[in-house]
């Protein structure tokens, strides 16, 4: 099955080791190349500067940090972002970003990412 996800470079930011392994495998199944994964904001921002990235999957809560600065940077570069979160609601403006509730199945992640890439072509920033 060919997918619009095939060959894309995905920044993964996730601080749970096991969840991270799972996501990497799912993304590889979709034909994506994983950039990272990063578990901290500073690590992720360094990757954003150094690497080519097509989209990012960001866990909102990174222990003591939130991943919002990474979302801000990516938004300024027009790189699509999917937030993964266990929170029911996020503070604005981040609540307007595409979200996926943890835990998620491979199919749910695929659906969300395909929608993200399809809509990102002409999308506006959440600001």
């Amino acid at each position, binding site marked *: 099955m060919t997918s619009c996800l095939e060959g894309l470079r995905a920044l993964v930011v996730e601080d749970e080791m096991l*969840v991270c*392994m799972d996501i990497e495998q799912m993304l590889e199944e979709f034909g994506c190349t994983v950039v990272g994964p990063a578990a901290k904001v500073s690590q992720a921002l360094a990757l954003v500067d150094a690497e080519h990235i097509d989209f990012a999957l960001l866990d909102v809560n990174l222990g003591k940090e939130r991943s919002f600065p990474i979302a801000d940077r990516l938004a300024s570069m027009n790189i699509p972002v999917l937030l993964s979160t266990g*929170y*029911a*609601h996020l503070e604005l403006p981040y609540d307007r970003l595409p979200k996926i509730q*943890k*835990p998620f*199945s491979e199919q*749910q992640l695929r659906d969300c990412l395909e929608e993200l890439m399809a809509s990102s072509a002409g999308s506006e920033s959440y600001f």
Partner: protein
Amino acid sequence: MTPQTGADLSETLRRLNLLNAVCENASGALFVLNEEQHCIYMNTAGFELTGFSLDELQGRPLHDIIHHTHPDGRHYPIEDCPIDRAFPQSRRERGQDVFVHKDGHFYNVEYTASPVEEGETIVGTVLEVRDITAEIQARIALEDETRTLEILNRTGAMLAGTLDLDEIVQAVTDAATELSGAQFGAFFYNVVHEGHALQLYTLAGAPKEAFSAFPQPQHTAIFGPTFTGGTVIRVADVTADPRYGQSAPFHGMPPGHLPVRSYLSVPVISRTGSIHGALIFGHGMPGIFGPRVERLVVAIAAQAAIAIDNANLLDAAQKEIEERQRSEDHQKLLAQELNHRVKNMLATVQSIATQTFRASGEQALLRMFQGRLLALSHSHSLIMQENWTTVDLKAIAATALTPFLGEVVNNDRLLLDGEPVQLSPKLALALGMGFHELATNAAKYGALSCETGVIEVRWRDIGEGILCLTWVEKHGPPVCAPQSRGFGSRLLERGLAHELHGTVRLLYDAAGLVCEIRMPNPEDVTQ
């Protein structure tokens, strides 16, 4: 001049008698002064007015006897007297002034001073005087009353218009001090703790510094009856009162205290009977506060009590609201954190399973496990959205069935029908899992395993607080009872029944599976 006849003389005498009768019977005091301002005639009313006999008025100008001093004690020289001017300036003078009685008291008069002329020459003055003390006192009393009403009205309007405690107490203290004629007034709060100290709240007529150097006043013999017994204390001279000066350490007013002789204290009593505090007034002169002042201040204190009660009620209500808001915010924060942790834990459990099963190659089992875990997680999401309060039964069913049917709203293959029923989070999780198992079975063997099958879910109260929910599959492949019971049927018939405190029956009807759940209706308020 023509010589007078006897008839003329008797006529003159008759006229003099008449004139004398007029003068002596006049209610106004009449005086005739000569060119030296000495009194040469005074009628009976004049004697009654001044207290002096005509003899006593001789030898000095009348001014020096009845008009020599101003009410404030200053000397009143004759040169300044307008009555005196009637003579040298030859014109009628009218006016009001204050005279001094023989016994020393002052009285208010209205006078007319007219020159007595002989041809071109002025030889004296006629002075008419009327005592207007009673009129003036009546006018002053009326003005006082008007002013009192104005202050009461202003204070009442102000008290009705504010719920600010500081404003209320200041307005009351100011108004009561003004009305009572006190040099200073204060409101003391009744602070109930060890020693029963009285807290100075506000002052009128004196700066706060005038009291700030002293320790908090205590419930002494003079303060106590007002603050603990709620009685009014009005003393003409507090330094002469037996209750005064009994308490250590000062035995009276502390050194440097504003001098107080007249003392009035009026309690401010709330509608519950507790004593908010007291209005206390002082004056350096004795005998300032009469019963009228006491009545006025008691009336103001009653208004103040209502206003303070209202302000306290508002304050308490606001504190209550703030406290509730804080507690709600805190609860939301905790719920958010709980959600996050639950979800992360579920994600980690899923990952462990994925990694474990992937190695063993048991893909079917992995999918079944994932399905159950996600069903649990989705029910959880619904509960989170409702902030761990309650979740609607229909919403729980729809959430569980969404992964199998896609969109559940307006789906021809699904009917969800029943009154709104709010489920506790625990019931919602259990029913969510139950619907997931039923849907999984339907997808494998039942109505969702072919294109034509439909599922009808209905629930209603069947009386005696029992909610009956039926899951009926139709138009699917023929159904036969399974050989052995799997996890799904065990979860439904044992686990769910237990969790719901009800019964769950699975009927493998050939036309389609039927599941009947009976449980205590969570909407039934009698339970």
